[in-house]
């Protein structure tokens, strides 16, 4: 199945000479530079590679169906997590979040997952390993995580917003449990027309969250004190109250 192929190829041709003032205070400018089919176990996607002027990271969009010029496009922002996405780490739930988002998108006619290459939400894998080491020593890591770069970066949203604009998406339905993500994207000029709750099916590995939920009141579980909030999204597992 071929979706939206020509429209995406046209974006690459259009962006060849693209220069702009940029988005946000960090003045991020991005260009779509390469497009190819990416068949996945979740469904058919097109992979769009972006260049940007602020970091040396190669951010990508996984595009399902026709999205150029469309409204109400389901969109998920995912921050790269080598340990979770690739290695299947149980220190975080990034892999569950990634695969569930791709399933949600592939079930519908269209959608986009922005895969943002900011390992550890900040300055890299080395600091993430350092943060894990601090946890092992039983040290208070809230302040340490901040210093090591585990926090939302205004730049993340500026890049994401500009990628969505480059794809010609007119409005999005954000797959998230995090109201702040909606606010930040809106500030960068993205029209957020709605939200799709991001709910992960329970399995033997994320039972932890359900147990934690039983011990604490409220469904929005703040795990930042014990774990790194690598996806800046509170975890919701089926069986919890949906936010």
């Amino acid at each position, binding site marked *: 199945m071929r979706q939206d192929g020509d429209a995406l190829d046209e974006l690459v041709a259009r962006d060849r000479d693209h220069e702009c003032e940029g988005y946000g205070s960090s003045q991020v400018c991005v260009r779509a530079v390469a497009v190819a089919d990416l068949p996945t176990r979740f469904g058919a996607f097109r992979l769009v590679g972006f260049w940007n002027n602020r970091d040396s990271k190669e951010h990508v969009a996984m595009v399902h169906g026709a999205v150029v010029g469309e409204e109400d496009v389901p969109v998920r922002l995912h921050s790269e997590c080598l340990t979770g996405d690739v290695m299947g780490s149980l220190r975080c739930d990034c892999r569950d979040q990634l695969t569930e988002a791709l399933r949600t998108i592939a079930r519908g006619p269209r959608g986009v997952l922005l895969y943002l290459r900011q390992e550890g939400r*900040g300055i890299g894998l080395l*600091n993430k390993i350092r943060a894990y080491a601090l946890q092992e020593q039983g040290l208070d890591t809230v*302040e340490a995580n901040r*210093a090591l770069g585990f926090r939302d970066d205004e730049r993340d949203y500026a890049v994401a917003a500009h990628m969505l604009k480059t794809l010609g998406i007119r409005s999005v339905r954000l797959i998230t449990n995090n109201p702040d993500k909606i606010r930040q994207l809106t500030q960068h000029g993205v029209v957020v027309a709605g939200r799709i709750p991001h709910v992960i099916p329970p399995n033997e590995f994320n039972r932890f969250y359900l147990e934690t939920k039983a011990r604490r009141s409220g469904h929005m579980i703040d795990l930042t004190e014990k774990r790194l909030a690598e996806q800046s999204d509170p975890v919701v597992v089926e069986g919890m109250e949906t936010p």
Partner: protein
Amino acid sequence: MPLGESVLVVGAGVAGLACARALSAAGASVSVIDRARGVGGRCATRRVEGQPVDLGVAFLHGRDPDFLAALESVPATPLPGWPQEVHGTGRPCQPEAFRPGEGRRAYVEGVNAFPRWLARGIGVRLGARVERLELSDRLPRAVLEGGEAIEAETLVLALAPEQSGRLLASAPAAPSPVATARALLGMAASEPSLSLAALYPSSADGPRWQVCYPSESTVLQLASHDSTKRRAPRFLAMVFQAHPRWSRAHADRPEWPDLLLAEAARLLGAWAAAPLHRHPHRWRFARTDRSGEMASPLLVRLPGGGRLGLCGDRFAPGGGVEAAWLSGRALAGRILAEEGA
């Protein structure tokens, strides 16, 4: 009864001064102490035979608009774009200094003009060495050599990570947030640099370039043609800075200045072997290893009600004077935000 301060900053380098300046501008009572005789830390200009020589940082560079504006505001004679003539293909101490979009400059009066300008109007006590800290059950205190204690609501350490770590280790019964701070400080090490100012007759056949990073030397990382920054200099002045690894191996060998000069003569010509005057300096903590770089300064609450802040060139991305300045200002912002809350 110890002298009371709202904020006490230990370390009058660029990070400490930027922090103190931003706090003071917001109306906080702040004072700074440093064990050295002058402000600026590694942003150092010494007079050798009456001629200013930049012994540490050779020039200033950055891209943050606020930082560049701060450099612009210094009432000194700027040398915008210095160094224009860069020679050699060795790795610069900070490769990002030569990326497109990076602003570079020096001052005729020396790079120390920048920290001196930051320090204006701020109470800076020099020649005072902090021996140990007390952080347990009341407001934090810095105990100086000789026993004098200074108490503050917020104690800021704006020092090299090793120096901050040593002071934190000196605090008896330090609470758990301090252990976290120590662990963070212990994750990466500073690199030393042996640095030598050498003065030659102004008639000497000096190099055509302003800065050289020799690729063919394991000894010399940087040669700076310092007198090209001065107006009508009496001497041709060079500053030679050694690679971290060589510096580590030779720091305790008294003949290191001769070895450094011999290498300079091999690379630049025989004239460089025998200067008229020389001024050696050992920078034990010249710069931080970039792999240990952090995203922001650290501010932790202490059980006694006070706070402990850490800033410095390691506590902002990019390293160097710009990171030091940004981290100091960011820490001041966090201290003020917590007070307002």
